[in-house]
């Protein structure tokens, strides 16, 4: 196809699809991402939807969006601001214009901009006509009308015809990015296999949208993002929540202990529960409990019975599970607790992300109650972190709290599919049946982990539980010295895990003017900002933590080689205060934000530059 239009080559581009919830924006965004990925782009995505299932039609509250960042270079985040904003109605434009880059492209369905919808969105005049969008490159088309028009000869009702407008606009965007329709046509064939009329209508709308752009004068430039230099292998797209579920399944398979999940639905963690429910063929036992407490308590029961037990939740659910985590700590049973963090306190903002449960994970229990705390740093890292959290929990006989967050859980990125058999092996310390020397709290002298004996095993009957027990024998005891000993042993067991985890890595030089410190889901934004500044010659590096309790053994050494340290978190300073407590010899600067929004690369760059100048 020869086209006289200018093609602009881009390193990376951010596209956001927005519309009324029910306009099919999640699907549109997903299909665009998949086509981009298959053409070799690296990418990261993030859906942005209201807490309400179907908020009132055409209102700002009811806007649903899907953002995708694709590139020829390595992509770490779903992007700060968008280069292309596709808006299907006035409310979605109103809600999202602040995320469009000045000079960026807007693709707008002008047929939805009637007086009523404009007013409902909170505009006083039509933004397509009042000149307020003059700094943008606007591609406006009566998409709804054109879709109906192109389906005039199809045997479908008006409502179904209007519903395919998302395919029409997707076709337009494919043209805009010089992408082929092939994979999406294939998807439509599969998805609507039993519904030939709907299938044909969707295909027709997709093609019509593509052709319309091609003939439309408003589209005077198109973009091209070349293939990324991805490592060879098989790839797929994966969200953080699904990756977490898969990491847990992989750990069950490699450890030989059957997976048991006890969980209660809660946003934004529910997808892990739903995903694991699908995999009974892998032996995963999923118990949807009556509440958060029953979720974790059933998991503790399953762990006592010899399963690899997991509970998944989000902030308020972690609060409810606190007492039971203490039970798992004193019983010294393996248990993985996944907390997909959201904005709190209380119900807070369930669909918005935050990192404000760190202190709760570290200390939110009665008694001296140490548990391992880890954090995942990207959607794909959720897979590896879940696997490693499981390995630590099973091999060291301890609860592990894995912190992810809503952005990781809902966000997606490309996943280079590993061979599960190449992951590190997992060997739980199983007791030997009929071992005459078996005692419930006899410990491995190096790791201090006790042995795991469970009902059904011959010759090992014993009793454990929430009351303090004597070391080795495991008998109920209130002896003062024994309690001190057991408190020390439980803490030491967790601290010793530092001998089994990787050393803290540094992105960049090992010495410099500013060390940026982060943890968990902010890695993408932090590394992007730090790399940009490194390219400008700044002496800045990043230490991004996955292991929080215990910290990697070389943490002190890493911190000592920089003039300044700044700890960046989406909370009011929880990790920084933990570091101040653990390693008070360093002076820590901090940068915090709690707006239910991720860090933007631009804001971080400004903050770091200022800190370097001061």
């Amino acid at each position, binding site marked *: 196809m020869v086209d006289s239009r200018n093609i602009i080559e881009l390193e990376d581009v951010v596209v956001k699809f927005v519309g009324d919830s029910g306009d099919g924006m999640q699907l549109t965004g997903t299909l665009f991402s998949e086509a981009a990925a298959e053409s070799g782009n690296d990418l990261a995505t993030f859906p942005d939807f209201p807490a309400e299932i179907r908020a009132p039609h055409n209102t700002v509250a009811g806007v649903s969006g899907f953002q995708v960042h694709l590139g020829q270079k390595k992509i770490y985040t779903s992007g700060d601001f968008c280069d292309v904003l596709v808006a299907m109605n006035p409310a979605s434009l109103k809600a999202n214009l602040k995320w469009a880059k000045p000079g960026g492209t807007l693709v707008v369905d002008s047929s939805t901009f009637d007086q009523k919808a404009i007013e409902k969105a909170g505009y006083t005049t039509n933004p397509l006509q009042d000149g307020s969008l003059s700094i943008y490159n606007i591609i406006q088309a009566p998409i709804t009308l054109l879709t109906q028009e192109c389906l005039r000869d199809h045997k479908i009702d008006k409502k179904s015809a209007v519903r395919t407008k998302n395919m029409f606009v997707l076709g337009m965007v494919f043209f805009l990015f010089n992408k082929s329709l092939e994979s999406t046509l294939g998807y439509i064939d599969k998805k609507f296999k039993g519904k030939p009329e709907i299938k044909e209508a969707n295909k027709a709308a997709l093609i019509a949208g593509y052709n319309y752009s091609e003939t439309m004068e408003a589209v005077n430039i198109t973009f091209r993002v070349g293939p990324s230099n991805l490592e060879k292998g098989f790839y797929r797209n994966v969200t953080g929540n699904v990756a977490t579920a898969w990491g847990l399944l992989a750990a069950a398979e490699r450890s030989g202990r059957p997976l048991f999940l006890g969980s209660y639905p809660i946003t934004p963690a529910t997808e892990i529960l739903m995903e694991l429910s699908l995999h009974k063929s892998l*032996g995963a036992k999923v118990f949807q409990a009556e509440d958060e407490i029953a979720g974790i308590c059933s998991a503790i029961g399953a762990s006592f019975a010899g399963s690899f037990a997991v509970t998944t939740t989000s902030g308020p659910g972690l609060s409810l599970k606190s007492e039971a985590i203490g039970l798992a700590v004193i019983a010294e049973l393996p248990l993985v607790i996944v907390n997909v963090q959201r904005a709190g306190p209380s119900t807070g903002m369930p669909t918005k992300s935050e990192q404000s449960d760190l202190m709760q994970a570290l200390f939110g229990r009665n008694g001296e109650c140490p548990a391992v705390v880890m954090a995942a740093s990207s959607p794909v890292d959720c897979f590896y972190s879940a696997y490693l959290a499981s390995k630590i929990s099973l091999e060291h006989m301890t609860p592990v709290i894995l912190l992810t967050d809503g952005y990781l859980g809902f966000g997606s990125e490309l996943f280079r599919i590993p061979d599960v058999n190449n992951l590190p092996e997992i060997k739980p310390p199983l007791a030997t049946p009929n071992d005459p020397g078996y005692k419930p709290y006899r410990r491995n002298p190096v790791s201090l982990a006790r042995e795991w004996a469970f009902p059904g095993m011959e010759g090992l009957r014993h009793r454990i539980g929430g009351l303090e027990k004597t070391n080795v024998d495991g008998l*109920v005891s209130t002896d003062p010295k024994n309690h001190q000993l057991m408190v020390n042993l439980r803490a030491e067991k967790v601290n010793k895990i530092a001998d089994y985890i990787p050393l803290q890595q540094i992105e960049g030089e090992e010495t410099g003017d500013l060390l940026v410190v982060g943890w968990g889901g902010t890695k993408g934004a932090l590394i992007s900002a730090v790399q940009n500044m490194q390219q400008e010659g700044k002496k800045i590096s990043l230490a991004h933590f996955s292991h929080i309790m215990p910290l990697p053994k070389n943490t002190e050494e890493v911190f000592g080689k920089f003039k300044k340290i700044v700890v960046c978190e989406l909370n009011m300073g929880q990790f920084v205060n933990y570091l101040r407590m653990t390693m008070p010899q360093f002076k820590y600067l901090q940068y915090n934000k709690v707006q239910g929004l991720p860090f933007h690369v631009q804001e971080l760059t400004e903050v770091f530059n200022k800190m370097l100048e001061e």
Partner: protein
Amino acid sequence: MLKDKRIQVSPTELTKEDFVSDQMVKWCPGCGAHAILAAVENVFPKIGYRKENFAFVSGIGCSSRFPYYVNTYGFHGIHGRANAIASGVKIANPDLSVWIATGDGDSMAIGGNHLIHIVRRNIDVNILLFNNQIYGLTKGQFSPTTPMGEVTKTSPHGTIEHPFITAGLIMGAQGTFFARAIDNNVKLMTEVMYEAAKHDGTSVVEILQNCIIFAENAHTHIANRETKEDVQLFLKHGEPMIFGKNRNKGIILKGTGLGVVTIGEGGITEKDILVHDQYSKDPAIHRMLGRMMQPVFPVAMGVIRSAPYLTYDDLHEEQINNARKTAKIQSVNDLLRSGEVWEIK
């Protein structure tokens, strides 16, 4: 010896000694829990499963020290959560005979939610619910089963709460098995525990237990050896509901409820007396039997309800087995490679 579709039977004959623990039993002298322990030690060898296949789970309270005093696998949980923990034990390993020791406070106050849901799901466990109508371990506060008006440490002017009737709560939660026994009748306790083990599904055995320190006499009007035959109705499947020292009193259907009659008076013969059907799926009569109270009615003892329903654990295993047979995804590697996957060469 019981036959279960999954739980292994003991290769050797077991005795009481196989289940006696080496721990000192620390309940108060005269506490009803001692007799419950004796009944468990009697019944486990009779049930005859392999001794490693028994697991005891408990919550918090006097009742919940139970696992330490019986030599099986045992887990002493946290307050109210025994039923939730035990759900996990049984679902994780359906080859176990899972027993729960819990009390009126543990299972009907702080753990009420877990009790109704384990019962509703019909998970195949056996719940021994020690009902002494008081909080014993915390030294004498009223519980959800304390009779209204009772003076306790936290109700100095008498409680103003309507108590739960355990049977009503269990059957309201779609319970498939409910039995009642009293702690001064070890034989009856042993019998109903055996029946509980035999039942597929959640078996709730309410044991009217005496707390000699804080609620002494809570059950005396029922327990009294002199009058017990007049105030207790011992139910037997297939037999008429006859009670009384002279075996001349009985239960009949009267209007929309039950009534007490004397055989030989007003033309009543044995044929008019209701015959107990513990296996009836319709819970209407079971509910009325469970709610019978002094002074109008005798208190029903024995198995009130044992209705056959599918169990959660059987259905769960069936789904897993079917999925294993039919699903394309048989390993995590299969899973990671399913769906939209492409190769970068």
